[in-house]
């Protein structure tokens, strides 16, 4: 009874019923689409907030405040033994030379005034003066207008992070210093310029002197080791699994293994490095060599999986043609398949390298987080890498480190985006569709 009532209605009633429900269904359709659009909007909003917040903090980090003062380069004070060697320069009183020029500039007398004035200039200034006269001894005995970095507290004051209104005892610079800063500024002696310390400076606890140079070299060394290990092994594994390996149990185990390795959290690779390379092999900590090996093991699955896809995309007709004219299996692979699959392999490798460049956790495990001032000269010198440097700076309390960290992040992101763009371009330009 019910069935007939439901199933057999006249076309007219049916049309009416559908029409009645249509408005509701269309509204639902619109809502559903809106939901989808807002999901994308949310994701893109996150992206924008992330980039804007990094760039807003980071762009000022590429600049810092310097002071320009006339310095009497007094040979006797700077170079006591007079032979212009580094030892002699270090024994000399570069700090005194700079300070007395500053005192002359500001007309300060008295100990407490001098102490306040002395705190304006970064500790890196003396090092810079030494390097200047070491590189160009003809400057000795002349008077030069030199540019020195201001101390990070002064920098933060000039940027407005340390407020003038704050009571004197609560801020890190006192009223006298503010007075000196105002006078220097009024005379146009304080300049806001591109921060050469950021690019060429090495790790330092003084934010105004800290730079990424050492970490950058460390990153290059680590990535070189990683590439030299991961690329040949990854490609060789891909070739073996795609072209040569018999389809048997062992091959299957290797394949499952590679997929599992791709799922292992990166920090575990660091533990592997710590336990095997440092614990069992007794290799030193913090060296780019181990960092590179650990990152290579981590990126291997990425490279293998994309290289296999690239090899698989080469049509069988190419192989058959080569075999047909008498090439051996190896000649077919090395002369025909690999060149055709190379763009795909390179794309995967670049993406893997970008992953390795941004990776932090495994390198913390093997001690690349140590505070190292020297720039590593080889893969067995202790060093650190860019992301770890960012991690360490993010932990420091000084306000100026926030800008420096953000600036370092911008540099890192620029490299990553360039690498990924290169991968996309290689894929678009060189990859052949069959």
């Amino acid at each position, binding site marked *: 009874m019910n069935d007939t009532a439901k199933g057999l209605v006249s076309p007219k009633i049916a049309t009416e019923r559908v029409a009645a429900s249509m408005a509701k269904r269309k509204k639902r359709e619109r809502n559903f689409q809106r939901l989808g659009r807002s999901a994308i909007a949310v994701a893109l909003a996150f992206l924008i907030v992330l980039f804007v917040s990094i760039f807003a903090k980071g762009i000022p980090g590429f600049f810092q405040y310097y002071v320009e003062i006339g310095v009497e380069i007094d040979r006797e004070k700077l170079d006591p033994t007079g032979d212009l060697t580094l030892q002699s320069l270090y024994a000399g009183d570069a700090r005194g030379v700079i300070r007395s020029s500053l005192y002359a500039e500001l007309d300060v007398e008295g100990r407490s005034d001098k102490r306040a004035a002395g705190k304006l200039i970064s500790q890196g200034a003396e090092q810079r003066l030494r390097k200047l006269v070491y590189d160009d001894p003809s400057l000795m005995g002349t008077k030069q207008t030199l540019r020195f970095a201001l101390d990070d507290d002064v920098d933060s004051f000039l940027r407005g992070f340390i407020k003038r209104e704050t009571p004197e005892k609560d801020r890190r610079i006192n009223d006298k210093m503010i007075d000196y800063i105002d006078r220097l500024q009024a005379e146009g002696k304080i300049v806001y310029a591109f921060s050469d310390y950021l690019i060429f400076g090495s790790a330092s606890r003084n934010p105004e002197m800290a730079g990424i140079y050492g970490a950058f070299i460390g990153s290059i060394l680590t990535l070189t080791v990683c590439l030299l290990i991961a690329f040949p092994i990854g490609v060789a594994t891909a070739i073996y699994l795609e072209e040569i390996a018999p389809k048997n149990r062992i091959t299957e185990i290797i394949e499952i293994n590679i997929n599992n390795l791709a799922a292992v959290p990166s920090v575990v690779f660091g533990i592997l490095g710590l336990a*095997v390379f440092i614990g069992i092999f007794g290799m030193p900590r913090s060296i780019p060599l181990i960092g590179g090996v650990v990152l290579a093991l981590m990126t291997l699955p990425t490279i293998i999986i994309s290289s296999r896809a690239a090899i698989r995309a080469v049509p069988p007709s190419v192989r058959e043609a080569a075999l047909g004219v008498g090439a051996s299996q190896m000649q077919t692979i090395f002369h025909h398949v690999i060149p055709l699959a190379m763009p795909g392999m390179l794309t995967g490798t670049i993406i893997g390298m970008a992953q390795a460049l941004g990776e932090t956790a495994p390198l913390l495990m093997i001690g690349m987080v140590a505070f190292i001032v020297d720039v590593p000269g080889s893969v067995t010198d202790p060093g650190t890498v860019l992301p770890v440097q960012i991690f360490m700076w993010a932990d420091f309390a000084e306000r100026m480190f926030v800008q420096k960290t953000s600036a370092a992040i911008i540099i890192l992101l620029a490299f990553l985006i360039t690498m990924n763009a290169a991968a996309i371009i290689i894929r678009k330009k060189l990859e052949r569709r069959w």
Partner: protein
Amino acid sequence: MTTIQIAASILFIGLIYFIICQSSARHLQVSISGRLHSRTQYYGFFAALMAWLPAYALLIVMAVGDDIVFQSLSLNFIPDEVQTDPDFNEIIAQAQIKNLVSGTNFGKQPDWAHAAADAWQRWIVTSARLTTVVCLSLALLGGFLGYYKVNPNFRSRNAVEGIVISLLAASSVIAILTTIGIVFSVVFESFRFFTLVPISEFLFGLTWNPQFEGAERAGSGQMGLSTYGSVPLFAGTMLVSIVALTVAVPVGLFSAIYLSEYASDRARGVVKPLMELLAGVPTVVYGFFAALTVAPFVRSMGLSLGLDVASESALAAGLVMGIMIIPFISSLSDDVIRAVPQALREASYALGSTQNETIRQVVLPAALPGVVASVLLAVSRAVGETMIVVMAAGLAANLSLNPLDAVTTVTAQIVTILVGDQEFESAKTLSAFALALTLIIITLGLNFIALHVVKKYREQYE
């Protein structure tokens, strides 16, 4: 010579042999009017491989192995009366000797340590000389063997290809070796940890407090103060992951649906790479963003609502982790949704359903296994994520399910325990390995289930 110089010399020797053997094969070819078995360069390759492979293999063994040998030899210098002393610790003794060797010794060391260090330094010199002589002569000898083999009957191409195939096969074994390395390094140390701390305490204990050092020297049995109950860590990991998934699953899934079903090709071409940009951002950057931008924002929001928010809250870390895993969910789900055959959609349209009815009642059920797998993979990503939680979630091991509290996670603890100098023997260090073991089991388990779900419930349409 240093290792790198030796490696370069071996490379050079191989290249020289390549040139010599190829040209001698060419001469041979001319003199016997072209009846060589293989093309001439294969004779060169064979000689070069013979020069390189044994020499490099030996070089690697020597470079890695010398320290291990020195270490065991140096123990002979420790007098018996010291070794039998109950306070004697072999690892500390080795560290004493090593510090003397590397010149980073502070304080006074016993005479035997100085004797061992002196001997060690002599060994380094001897071993460097020995390595140079042996490796280079091996390279010369191997290459000469290759040269000796240049004759019309030698099938050099087959020999070279045989060597190359075994090299390719050997590299595919590296993946297995890595897994074995991971499993052994983690399992072995975990077992040592479980001899110090009962496994039941580790799995079910409700307080995690490894901070009391000194009293817990291995084997001394003074475990009194430290507690190794991992429940708060796993609760923290779960809490952060749940927050992350609450953000990432709806956003990722709806983006995937919109991109695959509604968006024009142009919009898709712009939006998809932008979303994948989120996956390319290094985790340390997310950590910095979480700690410096999101956490203060969450805190001030909470305070303005009258809520007490910890400055390092699970909410902030979870939110940012959610942003990080959006692209994992969206791009995997996108692939799965696009793989649903068009015929299913058209059949549904033909019955009069609207597009969203089709998506909800036809496409999504068909794509469900893949979507579930993508969510599981995202969970495993969230559980294994390290830097965001290290930088933004804090280290306080609170057992709490309130996302406004500070919690800590398994990965964050592993990093804090293992960063910096540590003794391999203390229960605190070993506990990190036990945590890593559970972490591996969880992530691999999730991965396994995800693959299984896809395999078992995938609809085969064609």
